[in-house]
């Protein structure tokens, strides 16, 4: 097996891969890439399955997009214009924002005990954003045209314009921040500045993504500044859940393999309580939103009745959020690794349903589309749309596994380790 050493910087990654390609030849290079996960580890198995899913789902969706085009989507001018692909993009973009919030806890707000998850959270924030952008690019009619038409159009009135601006700034700052941690720069003024700037950028980006929907008074199910707050806070929940899942995965789902700082956090009371609080906030927001939607007679809110009749809604609220909420509050099971992981997986599933329900639900009331259009639009995603979503997940999870292989994502500042050792000596 080829040993993978951690590259020194971004240029080194490409130099190393180029050298490997030249030395080993294309076929052996591909075999090495495939066998990245030969040693038995969760990330390794993850990498292989993501490669398979990515090639199959990506291949199918690209084939359909090149042969049939966007007509292979079940979206329609008569009803649901933005379908599953946009829901997937929103899910990834907000998960990325949430992961940046998590990384900001130690880097901006001084919760030093969270340093061991910072580098992994930033890497995850980068790749989930890349996965989201990839799905969005394949949903757009002309993604390459966007690269020149948005900067030259400068439509400052458009929430989508600002969403693009802030998420681009966010991605650049995340890359810089990851580079600094890579170079073991945890505490310099530059590192602090980038951390703070990144936190501000991600608040603006996720808030602006909320305003893409919240500005549209014609769609009352989305309208209002609430949507921004909703996106920011539920994004934080997704980030927390993704952090729990991937941190366990990095240590082969075995708490004993974790460094002491992390183990103490996973075993302590704080993590489950913080997680439960975030789930509770999401539940309150979702249920109050549904309450006003079902209670009001306002034209355009009829979609809430359709959503409330859907089994997906009950799966989301009862199983995906309610159950993990109770699990993380119960003093008997909140510390168990399996329960923490199950809660995190359930939350991620529920939030994916939530994004889908939010995006599609907001368009269920058609706008003057003629006599033959039903009073509420029907929409089921096509196979191409599902394949595109699977492709997005394969990109995110595959790149995550690659990150675990290439980088030391569990890196922690030396000073923290020394301080922890000092604390333990004092205790003895």
């Amino acid at each position, binding site marked *: 097996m080829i040993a993978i050493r951690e590259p020194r910087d971004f240029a080194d990654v490409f130099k190393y891969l180029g050298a490997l390609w030249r030395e080993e030849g294309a076929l052996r290079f591909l075999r090495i890439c495939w066998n990245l996960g030969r040693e038995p580890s969760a990330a390794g198995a993850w990498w292989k399955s993501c490669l398979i899913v990515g090639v199959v789902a990506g291949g199918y969706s690209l084939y359909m997009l090149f042969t049939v085009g966007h*007509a292979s989507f079940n979206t329609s001018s008569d009803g649901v214009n933005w379908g599953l692909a946009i829901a997937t993009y929103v899910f990834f973009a907000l998960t990325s924002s949430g992961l940046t919030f998590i990384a900001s806890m130690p880097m901006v707000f001084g919760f030093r005990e969270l340093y061991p998850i910072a580098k992994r959270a930033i890497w995850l924030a980068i790749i989930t954003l890349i996965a989201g952008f990839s799905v969005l690019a394949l949903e757009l*009619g002309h*993604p390459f045209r966007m690269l020149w038409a948005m900067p030259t159009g400068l439509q400052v009135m458009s929430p989508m314009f600002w969403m693009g601006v802030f998420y681009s700034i966010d991605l650049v700052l995340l890359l810089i921040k990851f580079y600094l941690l890579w170079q073991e720069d945890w505490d310099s003024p530059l590192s602090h500045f980038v951390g703070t700037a990144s936190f501000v950028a991600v608040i603006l980006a996720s808030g602006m993504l909320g305003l893409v929907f919240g500005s549209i008074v014609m769609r009352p199910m989305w309208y209002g500044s609430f949507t921004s707050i909703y996106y920011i806070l539920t994004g934080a929940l997704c980030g927390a859940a993704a952090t729990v899942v991937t941190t366990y995965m990095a240590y082969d789902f075995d708490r004993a393999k974790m460094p002491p700082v992390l183990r103490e956090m996973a075993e302590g009371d704080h993590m489950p309580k913080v997680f439960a609080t975030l789930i509770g906030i999401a539940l309150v927001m979702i249920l109050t939103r549904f309450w006003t939607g079902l209670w009001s007679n306002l034209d355009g809110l009829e979609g809430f009745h359709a959503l409330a009749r859907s089994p997906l809604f009950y799966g989301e609220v009862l199983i995906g959020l309610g159950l993990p909420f109770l699990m993380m509050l119960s003093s008997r099971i909140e510390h168990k690794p399996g329960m923490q992981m199950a809660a995190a997986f359930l939350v991620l599933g529920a939030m994916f349903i939530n994004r889908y329900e939010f995006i599609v639900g907001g368009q269920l009331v058609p706008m003057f589309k003629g006599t033959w259009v039903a009073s509420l639009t029907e929409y089921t995603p096509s196979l191409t749309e599902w394949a595109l979503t699977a492709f997005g997940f394969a990109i995110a999870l595959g790149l995550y596994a690659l990150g675990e292989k290439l980088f030391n994502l569990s890196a922690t500042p030396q000073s923290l380790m020394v301080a922890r050792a000092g604390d333990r000596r004092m205790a003895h």
Partner: protein
Amino acid sequence: MAKWGMVIDLEKCVGCQACTIACGMENTRLPGEHWQDVIFFQEGTYPNTELKWFPRPCMHCENPSCVAVCPTRATYKTEEGQVLVDWERCIGCKYCMIACPYGVRFYTEEAPRYGGPDLKAVFPAADAHSWSPPWKAPQEDWKHGVGVQPHDVVSKCTFCYHRVSKAPKGTADLDPSNPVMREYTPACVVACSPGARFFGDLSNPNSEVNKQIANKNGVRLLDHLGNRPQVYYLTGVGGAIPNTHTTKA
């Protein structure tokens, strides 16, 4: 500078849909891609119901939400008031379709609306056009959203920009009964056999559209949303426009 607007007298409209057909022919639309639609709806509840209808072109709003949300300025408002799409700037993000309260916009790449046949597949284009119809109107101007559109863009009613923009300066009314003005008048107005449509300059106090709006109490669709349409309806005693999005009970 004129500010073009339309008045539709619902007391005269017979729901024949000649406007829809004329628009489709003039602008080479696919079946079901009705830039100009006639929407039938029911008022009241059974057994006290009445079938009503109203024609619905693009409203060419004074405050168009579609223009404000377009991230590339592909959708824009001309100085003469038409809201148009520049197909060379449109990235197909469909945000304008989300933001338009009147549902007047269409994305090119979709399955056929009436279940087929898919005319785009029957008459495929060898060039950048989305399809190559066996017969099409000669005008083409992608900067103003006129003609057969390219792939993956959003299209909409242009108020027949290719006709109206050639009207002599200072024209108050584009009246199809005036042979001089007929070729500058939007196709739906020309085709309207009961003469329910009027087209003219809303900024000219003497124009026929302004007189009709003033004398017959013209109203605008979903006026509470604040988009301020430049299409007015005269409801009289027999006509009606729905005041909600859902035209069905």
